[in-house]
């Protein structure tokens, strides 16, 4: 049998890296020439936040096959952790003075802290919640998410000092989420999810989704992997929250209501649970489209919910199903097809 064409591993990584750089160059050119104004730059940054949120929920929802309804809670933990930390640093004044490089170490620490603290919350919530399944898991995570929000709203009265500034909001957060930071963080998040899923650990997570009893029977430590996936999902939600805080400059607990969790869920479901590409596309479309159709903004949520119901009835696997695009695989397939045709043609000629 003829050996199939395969792109070698280092080349694969090279191609992907080149694509990432190319994407960055295109955006930078668009911004610097003014083809995309500052308003659109803001939207692009928002899209980044939503991509991380959607792909992180996709870990727990699409890959692990659970339905957590408290994702906004983890986002809130990350947002407040990052914001409270960075407000304690000189970053705000540095940024006002236009010193964007001096804040980089603070931003890095803020993001790492946000990921860690959200991860701890993910662990504390995941251990009990993951003992339940299906609807019960959905409702218990909803409960935890709401508790997080209520605690953020009311904690100051218990502590006796200003910590989260309650319902009146946490203001004067340095707006550190530049396009560059967002681009890098989105790429890192997607990369981490990808390399996790394409390993024995990711395989174990998928096998639990497909059949938990069978996964146990082949020795998969289901509790460990469920918790790991849940924590990973929470950590990235925390990162997204931290970046969100850095785009807005102020935080209000009401942002992280149950409604926010559902908005993220809509992205994952529309894109196709279990497809990272689907989540990315849905995050881009559902963030960008309402901006293009501003006159429709009243109808936005109605359309969202209608889309969700129709999607479940007519295309329950979402737009992309569990399909994930790989440029390298596509190239391989095309090359193999062309070669196959050539070989067939050669065979024919020989026969004639």
């Amino acid at each position, binding site marked *: 049998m003829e050996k199939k064409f395969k792109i070698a591993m280092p080349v694969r990584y090279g191609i992907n890296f080149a694509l990432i750089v190319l994407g960055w160059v295109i955006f930078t050119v668009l911004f610097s020439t003014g083809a995309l104004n500052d308003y659109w730059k803001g939207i692009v940054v928002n899209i980044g936040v939503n991509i991380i949120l959607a792909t992180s929920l996709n870990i727990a929802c699409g890959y692990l*096959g659970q*339905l957590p309804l408290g994702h906004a809670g983890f986002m809130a933990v990350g947002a407040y952790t990052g914001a409270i930390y960075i407000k304690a640093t000189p970053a705000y004044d540095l940024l006002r003075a236009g010193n964007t490089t001096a804040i980089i170490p603070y931003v890095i620490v803020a993001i790492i802290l946000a990921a860690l603290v959200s991860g701890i919350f993910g662990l504390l919530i995941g251990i*009990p919640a993951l*003992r*339940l399944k*299906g*609807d*019960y898991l*959905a*409702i*218990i995570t*909803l*409960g*935890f998410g*709401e*508790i997080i929000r*209520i*605690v953020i*709203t*009311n904690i100051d*009265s218990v502590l006796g000092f200003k910590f989260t500034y309650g319902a009146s909001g946490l203001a004067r957060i340095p707006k550190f989420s530049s396009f560059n930071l967002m681009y890098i963080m989105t790429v890192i998040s997607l990369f981490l999810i990808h390399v996790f899923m394409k390993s024995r650990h990711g395989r174990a997570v998928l096998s639990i989704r497909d059949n938990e*009893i069978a996964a146990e029977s082949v020795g998969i430590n289901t509790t460990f992997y469920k918790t790991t996936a849940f924590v990973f999902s929470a950590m990235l939600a925390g990162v997204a929250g931290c970046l969100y805080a850095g785009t807005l400059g102020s935080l209000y607990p009401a942002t992280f209501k*149950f409604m926010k969790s*559902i908005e993220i*869920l809509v992205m994952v*479901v529309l894109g196709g649970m279990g497809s990272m590409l689907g989540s990315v596309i849905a995050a881009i479309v559902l963030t960008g489209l309402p901006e293009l159709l501003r006159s429709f903004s*009243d*109808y936005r*949520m*109605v359309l*969202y*919910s*209608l889309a*969700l*119901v129709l999607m*479940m*009835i007519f295309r*329950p696997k979402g737009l992309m199903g569990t399909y994930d695009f790989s440029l390298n695989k596509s190239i391989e397939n095309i090359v193999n097809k062309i070669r196959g045709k050539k070989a067939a043609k050669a065979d024919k000629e020989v026969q004639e």
Partner: protein
Amino acid sequence: MTFSSLIAQFINGLQTGSVYALVALGYSMVYGIIKLLNFAHGDIIMVGAYVVYYAIASFALPPMLAVILAVLVSTLLGVTVEKVAYTPLRSAPRLSLLITAIGVSFLLENGAQLLFGADKKSLDPMVSGSFQLGGVNVSYAAVVTIVVSVIAMVALTILVNKTKMGKAMRAVSEDMGAAQLMGISLNRTISMTFAIGSFLAGIGSVLYLCAYPQATPTMGSMLGIKAFIAAVLGGIGSIPGAMIGGFAIGILEALVAAVHLSMWKDAVVFLILIIVLLFKPAGLLGKKTQEKV
């Protein structure tokens, strides 16, 4: 806190608790029969409340007619949602059904916001006045609410235990396939369950208006979640469980408010839910099930 104020809070709790219980029954029945957490159930109450509001405020109908209309619309809405959104998904994975229910819930909430506006629609109280009972001020609204919901629950218990329809409902919830083989119409039984559940939600919406005379697009969301918690607490699928759960949550909330911690009210309810789910996932009166290998 004086004893009489404690009693007053207790009666308040019973009043809200009866509304929770009525709504919880709808959750419990639907869950029992098609294993669906019907997120849209709470929003049916919201629609019922708007019907009452517009019937009285815009069309100046007599309150009694408004009430009948609200119950009728709620029932019809519940059955329509079931037919349009849930029936096509009967053999789909549970997760798809749950997501659909969330979608319907959001559709109703956002649709209401679009149609009726996001602002509060306030209403004159439908039942006013109060009387003294051993030094405690008791509103007529509370009495009406508690009495009506107890009657509704007793009627439901009789319906489920004594009638042919009730027997069919219990059979379907026990084993859908076997019930069908015995000649029970699945579609009719499930629609009937939704009709009864939504009928109770319609009554619930009227009683809710007795306590808080205003309608907002999202009023059903938290109310629905609390009623669901009540159903879980009592043991989902169990009628007496839903009642006990509803009263328990209502009284608990009133007591938390009585000690001036009302801002933590929702957190306490969720905490109770979490504790129940972790230590007695089948609820107080529910039964446990296990997947067959």
